[in-house]
């Protein structure tokens, strides 16, 4: 099961190796500054919270030039059981972007899953090496539900500022919630924990196609966890501070993240079609509320991006959007920046129309996904203009209202999806 992806040297090491109860995977690429501290905190947290369990820390490194694996080994010392694996970076992995900045991230997770399976580990914890806010309580928050409550997958829930993660808050999370009926934060990257059952029956057995490699593994297993009706928890881990790495063009980020959800909609069509409403997944740790800070947001530029899309991408939008949605989008172009409003209902319709167009292959898929960016900028600008004078609680309510709208308008998607399939 998935052994082919494990490098030869690791396979040799696995033969006759002592089993482990908890496998902690640390993903790194030139993270010498942060990763030794992360490894130390995780090792300490595991030793304190699970003293009877055998822990193995595995550093999956993409080929750091700054001596990251050596720095981790030095920091951990001889007391902690520690392996280093250099994971391969091939093909589409080069194009992938994640906040961890680790190329070949999906290969690393697959290798970790295979190693955990081979060593018969009960839980596998995967953490990004570029994090600066890891605490020794994280292993307990993430792994304890797996060990004690038979949970299959624990997803991270970070405290974020009000306009941090706008794509997540206005599209990825509400769409996933409406589709699969589970309220998850959909925070890609950071830290996750998986059970042995989840690794064996899901991660290692699911079809692994080119698109998954293209869109990234975080969205893949997050969606899989909610689609496959396994026991999912979310762990409130506080704030996520990390060593920032370049994320590339916004349109590429949008195409990658949204493409993952759209792609998996086709695979899990039978699962989401019949789902109505949603339930919150159980939480461990402190619930992560929305922070009050706004940061620097250039609304003018976002509106400009939308208006330029309205001027230049109209022929493409006309192909993608339904006539009714297209007409409403056209009418948005007449507003002044300060009064610019993009109604939430229209945004939901736009997202559903794009999902349908993706399904029907009305355009080259990468073009289609990238053509969404100006519309996303338009909605985000409207969201910021409409909420910047409000306090964080009201902003959170606004996000909740949008998520509800995604749920109530789901029949719009289901009917058209079926109609297009016939």
């Amino acid at each position: 099961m998935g052994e082919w992806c494990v490098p030869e040297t690791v396979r040799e090491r696995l033969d006759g190796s002592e089993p482990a109860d908890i496998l902690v995977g640390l993903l790194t690429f030139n993270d010498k500054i942060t990763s030794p501290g992360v490894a130390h905190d995780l090792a300490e947290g595991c030793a304190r919270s699970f003293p009877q369990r055998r822990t193995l820390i595995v550093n999956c490194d993409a080929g750091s030039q700054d001596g990251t694996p050596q720095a981790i080994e030095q920091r951990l010392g001889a007391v902690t059981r520690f392996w280093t694996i250099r994971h391969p970076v091939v093909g589409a992995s080069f194009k992938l972007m994640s906040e961890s900045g680790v190329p070949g991230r999906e290969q690393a997770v697959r290798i970790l899953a295979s190693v955990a399976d081979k060593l018969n580990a009960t839980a596998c914890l995967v953490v990004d090496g570029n994090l600066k806010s890891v605490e020794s309580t994280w292993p307990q928050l993430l792994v304890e539900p797996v060990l004690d409550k038979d949970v299959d997958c624990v997803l991270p829930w970070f405290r974020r500022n009000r306009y941090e993660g706008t794509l997540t808050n206005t599209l990825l999370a509400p769409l996933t919630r409406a589709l699969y009926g589970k309220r998850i934060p959909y925070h890609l990257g950071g830290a996750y924990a998986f059970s042995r059952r989840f690794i064996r029956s899901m991660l290692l057995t699911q079809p692994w196609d080119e698109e998954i490699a293209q869109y990234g593994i975080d969205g893949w297993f997050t969606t899989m966890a909610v689609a496959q009706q396994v026991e999912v928890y979310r762990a409130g881990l506080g704030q996520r501070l990390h060593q920032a790495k370049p994320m590339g063009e916004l349109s590429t980020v949008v195409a990658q993240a949204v493409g993952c959800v759209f792609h998996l909609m086709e695979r899990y069509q039978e699962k989401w079609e019949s789902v109505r409403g949603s339930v919150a997944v159980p939480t461990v740790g402190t619930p992560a509320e929305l922070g009050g800070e706004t940061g620097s947001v250039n609304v003018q530029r976002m509106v400009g991006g939308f208006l330029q899309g309205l001027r230049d991408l109209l022929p493409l939008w006309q192909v993608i959007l339904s006539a009714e949605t297209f007409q409403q989008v056209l009418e948005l172009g007449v507003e002044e920046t300060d009064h610019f409003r993009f109604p939430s209902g229209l945004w939901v319709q736009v997202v559903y129309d794009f999902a349908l167009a993706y399904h029907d292959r009305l355009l080259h898929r990468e073009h289609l996904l990238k053509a969404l960016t100006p519309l996303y900028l338009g909605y985000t600008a409207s969201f910021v203009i409409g909420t910047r004078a409000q306090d964080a609680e009201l902003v959170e309510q606004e996000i909740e209202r949008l998520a509800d709208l995604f749920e109530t308008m789901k029949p719009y998607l289901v009917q058209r999806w079926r109609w297009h399939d016939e």
Partner: protein
Amino acid sequence: MNDIWAEAMVEAFRDMMKHVALFFPKLLALVSFIVLGVVIGHAVKAVLQRLLKALRIDVLSERWGLQAALVKAGFKQPPSQIVGRLAFWIVFVIFLFMGVDALDLPATTGMMSQLLGFLPSVVAAGLLLLVGVLLANFFAETTLIATVNAQIQEARVIANLVRWGILLLTAAMVLTQLGIAKEIVIAAFSIIFGGVVLALSIALGLGGRNIARDALERRWRKTKEEPDDMAHL
């Protein structure tokens, strides 16, 4: 006198009948070739369409985005039907020319061999044209989306330049492939392409100097002065 006249009449009639008798089988051959062309053309079309459907060419072309590109290029049908129809017409035209050749008319002598000699060039030129139009549309769309997302105001102009550049190159390649006035085509292409580039340089250097400076300044200042620290994911 009467005998001579009658003989001339009979001779002429006999000659004509002989010609008709000789021509009629050829005409019949032409009609037969046309009918055969239609029947075999349809058979080839049906077999090809079934084969391409069995190979899931339509599904694959949809998956690769080729179908959408074909629609944009003006082809409304799926690839299996386009190929089927093309095959029908090729077979039909071959049979038609065989029929015309069978007529043995002085004007059409050697037409078939000429056609068969020219056919590979026509097919290659047709394929070149199709690929060129598809590539022109694809890259124009890629450019348009990329430049709009980069908020470059001249997005449509740049995309059109890409489209027409590729179409111009395609047209030159198609004409060269067909062997139509090769030297003129190459010279015309070089002149037009060089002319366009020169015109753009002059336009930007003289007429649009201020606009270019403003655009560059705007872009430079945008990135320098207004950092946006929004995290979208």
